[in-house]
């Protein structure tokens, strides 16, 4: 079992992680990661403000509440 785990762990991070297996030149990969990292900072800040009960369906609920005959 341990041998199998080592084989997986030895693979480069990008081969198994984000964008794994995609044919992306290094320069574009670096730019993509940098852009995602910038957005991740915003996501982290927003996550702190959100109540745990926040739900992806809240958006539809707010829209539906606005519907008037």
């Amino acid at each position: 079992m341990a041998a199998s785990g080592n084989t997986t762990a030895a693979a480069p991070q990008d081969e198994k992680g984000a964008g794994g297996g995609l044919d992306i030149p290094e320069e574009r990969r670096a730019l993509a990661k940098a852009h995602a990292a910038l957005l991740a900072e915003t996501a982290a800040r927003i996550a702190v403000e959100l109540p745990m009960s926040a739900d992806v369906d809240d958006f539809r609920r707010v829209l539906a509440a606005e519907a008037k005959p």
Partner: protein
Amino acid sequence: MTDLAGLSARALAEAIRARKISSVEATREAVKRLIACHELTGCIVSLEADAALDGARAADTAIAAGGAAGPLAGVPLAHKDMFDREGRIASWGANIRADRPAARDASVIAALAEAGALQIAALHLTEFAYGPTGHNYVLGHARNPWDPARITGGSSSGTAAAVAYGAIPFGLGSDTGGSLRLPAACCGIASIKTTWGRVSRAGAMPLAPALDTIGALARHVEDLALALGCLAGPDPRDPAALPVPVPDYVARLADPVRGLRVGIDEKVVSEAHPEVQRMVDEVAGILTGLGLERRACAIPDWQTLDHLVQLVQLPDASAAHAAFLRTRPQDYGPQVRARVEVGHFVGAVDHLTALRARGTWLQRTLDVTFRDADIVILPVLADPLPSIAELDVGGGPKVQAAMGRVVKFTRPINYLGLPALTLPVPRKGGLPNGVQLVGRPFAEAQLLAVGHAYQREVPPEIAKPSMQGEIGR
């Protein structure tokens, strides 16, 4: 001879019904103008003149027999080539497309056919509708009918060019980050980006379903009302199409606009080019002349909204393209390939955080921004109409920044799901541009009434290619 190019669809339908002109004549003229427009702008993907003329003959026959009562009976239209049509394969503006013909029409195509409209062509779009400028590295770049060296805006580029040129009175497009508003502004026409869930997307090519909306582009705001009346409403084929009552949009064009509050967030608008700020101010002045009241308002943190919409859009689009990106990456143009790749690096938790926060941010916008305003006026483009050359960045290192600047004022509205009417600014002999009026959810009728009143002061124009080189210098 009636000047068909200048007629609204509503007026043309009335003339055809009254047999002042035949549908065959109208269709022949539309095809002729569309071919001329294509030579200038590259707007056509596929021309379907023979089939449309067969439909026109049938419409004329039905009208002569007292039938064909649909509000668009015999009216020639053309649409962005991203909608399913039975037995056909839409191009999606790409080398990669569906692998088999559609089994049935997209719901919006079926709705227009039910209203009696004809389709004379499928029109240019940016590859997979994933680009705000009209650049398409697969089909070729679309060119602006006012000045072919300028962008049409995208992704509904061909529809905007054809409408501006007077080949068709209106056509369908989609908007995920600005794709109805940007081409309308660039080509000097109007468009309606609908509330998310107002119009079915069934049978439309998905880009980022959490944000995708379907709408129309037209010279006359009354045609947007006519179109929306045909398109809006729930659809069992699209569970996101909300069961919200559909008003009579054409009747509501006559709603009084006096006393409505038009809000301006000066801080947000100040991020546009000074010339664009002047345009927003000028249109706000025209609206106050119509009796609207100008108010200051505040939109909650535009920069954060811009990041939140990207956290939704990038992985949503990448997920839709995941199979093609792995199996046929070489068949993408450089720009779309580069943009589709980025979404793979946005974390799942970050994506879900943006989706979970969406209701909160919409509610906050309604509570804060729309407390002081009924509609909000914003730029569409951040800058005066750019050239094709200056935004020809391909998939290179400038792509995120360049495209981000183009959609700066449009894509945050998609995160909020709000409706937005684009109106052309007074051109005064220069290049076209536009502003957007943003409303509360499902307030399209109110926006259209304001736009209809605005067009009494700023009438629709047809692009005049003879003016190439004489404007905007």
